[in-house]
């Protein structure tokens, strides 16, 4: 390897609020880094080409496809996965709504779905069902038929708005 292209990169970032330092292969995808190196198996690798959304995680406040971002690019970033979001309770209401509404079957798409849904809800408005469907249309679910997911997200949006107003 030439100096111009090092095949291992040192990175320092926070993952789920904890500082992490690592030396990663330059070609390592962020989702592989989280899953294989850190043992955070909550987010999933499915298509590995940016279409299905199973790998969706939160990076610097935005939902990001972990299979399309290199670990090296996450140097200095603030990364959250479903494990961290569960521990802090940040998406507790959404998780409860998913369980109550059976908005998951095999659960494989669910971690990515939750991160994507939370991004929409964090805008603070009550989205229409069409807007929810549009926003989640990069997250593939083969099991549910989507309607239960839309119901769950809609319910949480309404509940959060009600609480905000009170």
């Amino acid at each position, binding site marked *: 390897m030439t100096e111009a292209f090092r095949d291992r990169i040192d990175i320092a970032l926070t993952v789920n609020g904890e500082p992490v330092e690592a030396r990663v292969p330059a070609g390592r995808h962020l989702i592989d880094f989280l899953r294989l190196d850190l043992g955070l198996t909550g987010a999933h690798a499915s298509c*590995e080409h940016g279409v299905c959304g199973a790998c969706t995680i939160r990076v610097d406040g935005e939902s990001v496809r972990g299979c399309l971002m290199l670990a090296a690019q996450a140097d200095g970033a603030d990364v959250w996965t479903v494990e961290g979001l569960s521990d802090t309770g940040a998406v507790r209401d959404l998780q409860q709504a998913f*369980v109550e509404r059976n908005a998951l*079957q*095999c659960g494989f798409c669910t971690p990515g779905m939750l991160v994507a849904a939370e991004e929409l809800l964090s805008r603070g408005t009550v989205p229409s069902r069409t807007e929810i469907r549009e926003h989640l*249309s990069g997250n593939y679910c083969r099991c*549910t038929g989507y309607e239960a997911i839309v119901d769950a997200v809609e319910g949480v949006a309404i509940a959060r708005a009600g609480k905000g107003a009170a």
Partner: protein
Amino acid sequence: MNIPFGNPDRPNSYIGKTVPRPNAGRLVEGRGRYVDDITLPRMTHVVFVRSPHAHARITGIDAAEALKAKGVLRVFTGADLARVCTPWVAVLAHLKGLKSPPQHAIAVDRATWVGEPVAAVVATSRAAAEDGAALVEVGYKLLPAVTDMRSALDDATPVLHDEMGENLAFRRLHEEGDVEAAMASAHKVVSARFRTARHTGVTPEPRSILADWNPAEGQLTVWHATQAPHMMQTVFAKHLDLPEGRVRVICTDVGGSYGIKVHVYPDEVAAVAIAKVMGRPVKFVADRLESFTTDIHARDHEIEARIAVDADGRILAFDVDDWTAIGAYSVYPRTSAIEGNQVVNLCGGPYDFAHYRARTSVVFQNKTPTCQYRAVGHPIAVAVTEGLVDMAAAELGMDPVEIRRRNLFPDDAYPVTSPAKMRFEGLSHHASLDKLIALMDYDALRADQAEARKRGIHRGIGIASFIELTNPSPFMYGIGGARISAQDGCTVRMDPDGSVVALSGVTEQGQGTEAMLSQIVAEGVGVTPDKVRVITGDTQVTPYGGGTWASRGAGIGGEAALQSALALKDSILEVAGAMLQAPKDALDIRAGQVVDSATGEPRMPLEELGRIVYFRGDTLPKGLPRELVQTRHFITSDYPFAFTNGVQASYLEVDTETGMVTLLKHWCVEDCGRIINPQLVDEQIRGGIVQGLGGALFEEIHYDADGQLLNGSMADYLVPMAAEMPDMVIGHVETPTKESLLGAKGAGEAGTAGAPAAVMNAINDALRPFGAQVTEMPFTPERILRALGKIDD
């Protein structure tokens, strides 16, 4: 012989109620454990070198460069694995004439489809194995590829497997009555040519397996994303020459299956064989691109069919000629002839008519093998049947609902044997149709359609009745010689704290199997569902069973659970009777308490009974039976299958300028017998509908004439996403099967079975004023515009 579960005020009434799924909370927190989440000490990864050609002789394999790559440990060829793993032949004796050549875990000297494994590279990481695989040099001599199903049997077409002598894998002709005479005397005969595209399952979790051979113990443990762990145990034992009792298959969380994960895949067997050779754990997780070329495909059918009706719209005859191409091999052990066979069995299914002829021709070709995928054969049979019924109605100027009312088997006709020789125990076509019409407000929808048409907006209503085959008996596979269990078992045990563990042979891939079992066991024993822990998917632990496929989880596994729970309750009450000096039948168990059955007055909590049985057995009468564990097995015996029925409707809009279809709403009324958990059933049906909508509008595997797969990625193979899907209204009619105490039939495939036909009929309803009609799925904008005459080249 059903138990009446209808009264909601009965004690312990959990069957029929929506109760939470025990594993859902874990999955939403990302605490699932799918195969790829498991890491073992000294674990290796295998990546396959796959044929880039549809048909080629392998002239040589040079692994020298690959073996030099960092991390690469070994490279295996087909010949290497053939020494430790015997080939398999996927035929069934009852499908007369079905033939298929022996298939190896890795192709030995000839590759027969793009994606067939030709070598395996094992390395310390998946990335290293991928790098190594790119360095394996395989020499190929190209052979002519067979790709077109309709010319596969022509004399000029080369024969794919010399030893077969021809490209015909299976042919079946079923004839009942006199079809020609019925056609000749009919008021109208309508014919059409249908096509259903090649699909694949696109399971969110790719196929995954992790095999660990422990030579010191002589024990093979395989973590496998499968629907049929016991079947796989038997297969691994047989082909790797191991005692069956020394093979343990564990399936933890499985990320979607839909029939894709119930088959024997060469690369998965290879991974296990390699683990046995190397004495180290080997993991194989398919990447998405290889999933497209190696997960089974399905539904690749072309059908010419006719219907004959009299002047009153009575159906006189169906005549169906089905062709399907199954790729290079029949898939082990279920075989690839079943789908065509199902088309013959299911066409015309809901209707009372006399003359029936159906033929299926199943041919080999140089493409990915096809096999059973959710609602095997159903979407094809339903599309052909319901498409023709609608065309006949249009020809007669009759409303599509009316023609169905005139022909559906009457709800009081059962038991009935259909012209296809299917035996129906009890169906509810008319009650279901009535309910559907009410739910969708059919007349209002017709008015909306007419009003929209005035504004130049073209909406259509499509209806599709269907039957669904569930709860299969050994008549599906066992009688053909396959070691696929139609029976299932459940062991239920009470622990000292009064909680209950249920071990079941059926498995969970997200359907809610474990929730369903926990409800049944809770009601059967008399505890709350949260006191029941369900264990599935471990062949060393659970009773031998078939797993979860053909919508058998509730009907077969659920019944075994109910019977074992009732047996456990009986043994608990026997002990309680001795302790409380009361006759057994004066006692009952409710919400974890032994109670007086007449008054409901609590007599003793189960944890107290557990304490005494397990720790102070000395205080009980000598010789008192004290087995707080019971096992029961169940198999259906009166009918080969428990047929369900249902009816779906689609309301949609066709943009006649762009050919785009917008789904406005979808309805389904289904009769799956006893409903155990309404929410889970509804969501099974919704998920199934969306899978059917995918087939109707988006999904199609494309090959070129040389057998190259052209759209093998999720960017190119379209699947339904949230934005294009409609809201769906689900309704039920409940006709329990009398074959079991529980009365449950299956519900897993109904949605997929009927949705494509409903959409096809709705599109054609919208297009009818233009004299246009589509019958080739998926109904892409291009196909619709062609039908409208807006594209012709």
